[in-house]
C-alpha cells in the first residue's frame, strides 16, 4: 500500500490552488478518522469545531447527519450517493440546510452485473455480499437496483445476511453452496475495514468479484467499477471554494459526479481461469498485471 499523500498534494489541492487557495498559505486541513465506528463522528466534530473549523468535509450522508447533531450552522460538504434521498438536503439546486456536496449516484449494481456477464460464460447466478452500512440505506438502495437489473439480465441473486466481519466466511460458504458464479461487493463503512479479507475469501472460494470500492481490484478482487475519485475531488474543491468565499451551504448547489472508473485485476482473472475479453480490457482505466 502506498503511503498517504501528504497534505497539500493531490487533485483536491491542485484544484484548490487553481481557485486561489494555496494550502498552508490560504487554508489548512485537519483530519479525523472514525474507521468503521460512525458513533465516534459527533465527538470528532465537536473537537474540530472547538478548534474553529470553517467547513466540514465528510464521507456519506449518515456521516453528515452525525456532524449535524453537533452543528446546524457550520457548513458541511459531503460526498454521498444521494444527499436528497438521505434527507440531508431538500433539493439539488438549493440544499436548504447546512449540508451540500457531491452526489455519486450511479447505476452501479446494474453495471456490476453487466460487467460480470462480459467475463463469465453462462452467467446466471450471482451473490451480493451484504455488509452493515451504519443505517445509511446505501446497501438497500444497491440491492434494490441489483434485483431489478438481475431480473432484466435473467440472473438469480442470493443475498446472505452478514451482521459483521465474522460472518464473511459463512457468507462465502453460502455463496459456494448455492453455486453463485460471482459476487457483488458494495462499498460500506464495514467493507472499508475488511475488503482485503473479502477479496482473499473470494479467491479462496474461486469466486469472481466486483466492487465500487476503489482499492478492491488492487487487493485481489477481479474488478472495481465506481465513481471516478479525481472528478469527485475537483467538484468538492469547487464547492469548498464557494463556501470559503462566503456562500451559504444551503445555497450552494449539490453537484453530480458523472464519470466512472474501471479497474481489472488480470492476476486474479488468471487465478480464476477467466479470460477478460479484449473489448473490456480496452475500456479499463487501470489493468493490474
Amino acid at each position, binding site marked *: 500500500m502506498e503511503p498517504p499523500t501528504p497534505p497539500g498534494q493531490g487533485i*483536491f489541492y491542485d484544484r484548490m490552488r487553481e481557485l486561489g487557495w494555496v494550502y498552508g498559505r490560504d487554508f489548512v486541513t485537519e*483530519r479525523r478518522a472514525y474507521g468503521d465506528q460512525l458513533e465516534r463522528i459527533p465527538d470528532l466534530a465537536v473537537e*474540530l469545531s472547538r478548534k474553529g473549523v470553517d467547513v466540514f468535509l465528510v464521507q456519506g450522508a449518515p456521516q453528515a447527519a452525525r456532524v449535524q447533531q453537533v452543528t446546524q450552522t457550520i457548513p458541511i460538504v459531503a460526498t454521498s450517493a444521494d444527499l436528497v434521498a438521505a434527507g440531508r438536503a431538500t433539493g439539488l439546486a438549493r440544499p436548504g440546510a447546512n449540508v451540500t456536496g457531491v452526489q455519486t449516484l450511479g447505476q452501479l449494481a446494474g453495471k456490476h452485473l453487466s460487467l460480470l456477464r462480459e467475463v463469465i460464460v453462462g452467467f446466471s447466478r450471482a451473490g451480493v455480499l451484504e455488509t452493515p452500512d451504519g443505517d445509511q440505506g446505501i446497501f438497500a438502495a444497491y440491492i434494490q437496483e441489483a434485483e431489478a437489473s438481475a431480473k432484466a439480465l435473467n440472473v438469480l441473486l442470493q443475498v446472505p445476511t452478514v451482521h459483521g466481519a465474522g460472518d464473511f466466511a459463512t457468507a462465502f460458504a453460502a455463496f459456494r453452496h448455492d453455486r453463485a458464479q460471482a459476487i457483488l461487493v458494495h462499498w460500506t463503512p464495514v467493507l472499508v475495514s475488511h475488503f482485503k479479507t473479502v477479496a482473499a475469501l473470494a479467491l479462496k472460494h474461486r469466486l469472481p468479484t466486483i466492487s465500487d470500492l476503489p482499492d478492491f481490484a488492487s487487493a485481489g478482487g477481479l474488478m472495481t467499477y465506481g465513481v471516478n475519485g479525481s472528478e469527485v475531488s475537483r467538484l468538492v474543491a469547487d464547492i469548498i471554494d464557494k463556501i470559503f468565499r462566503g456562500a451559504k451551504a444551503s445555497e450552494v448547489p449539490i453537484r453530480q459526479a458523472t464519470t466512472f472508473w474501471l479497474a481489472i485485476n488480470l492476476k486474479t482473472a488468471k487465478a480464476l481461469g477467466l479470460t477478460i475479453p479484449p473489448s473490456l480490457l480496452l475500456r479499463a482505466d487501470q489493468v493490474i498485471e
Partner: protein
Amino acid sequence: MDRRAFLGVIADGLLAAPLAAEARGLALPGGPNALGVPGFTAKGEH
C-alpha cells in the same frame, strides 16, 4: 491571528491505497461515500 480558512475532514481514513494518482484524486478515492483529502493514515493523523 490565523486567518487561514480551516477545513475539517472526517472520514473513515483507511483508503490511502495503490490506485493510480489520477483515480485516487486525493488519498481517498471515489465511490458512494468518496471524498479525497490526502494525508490520512489509518488513525486519521497527519
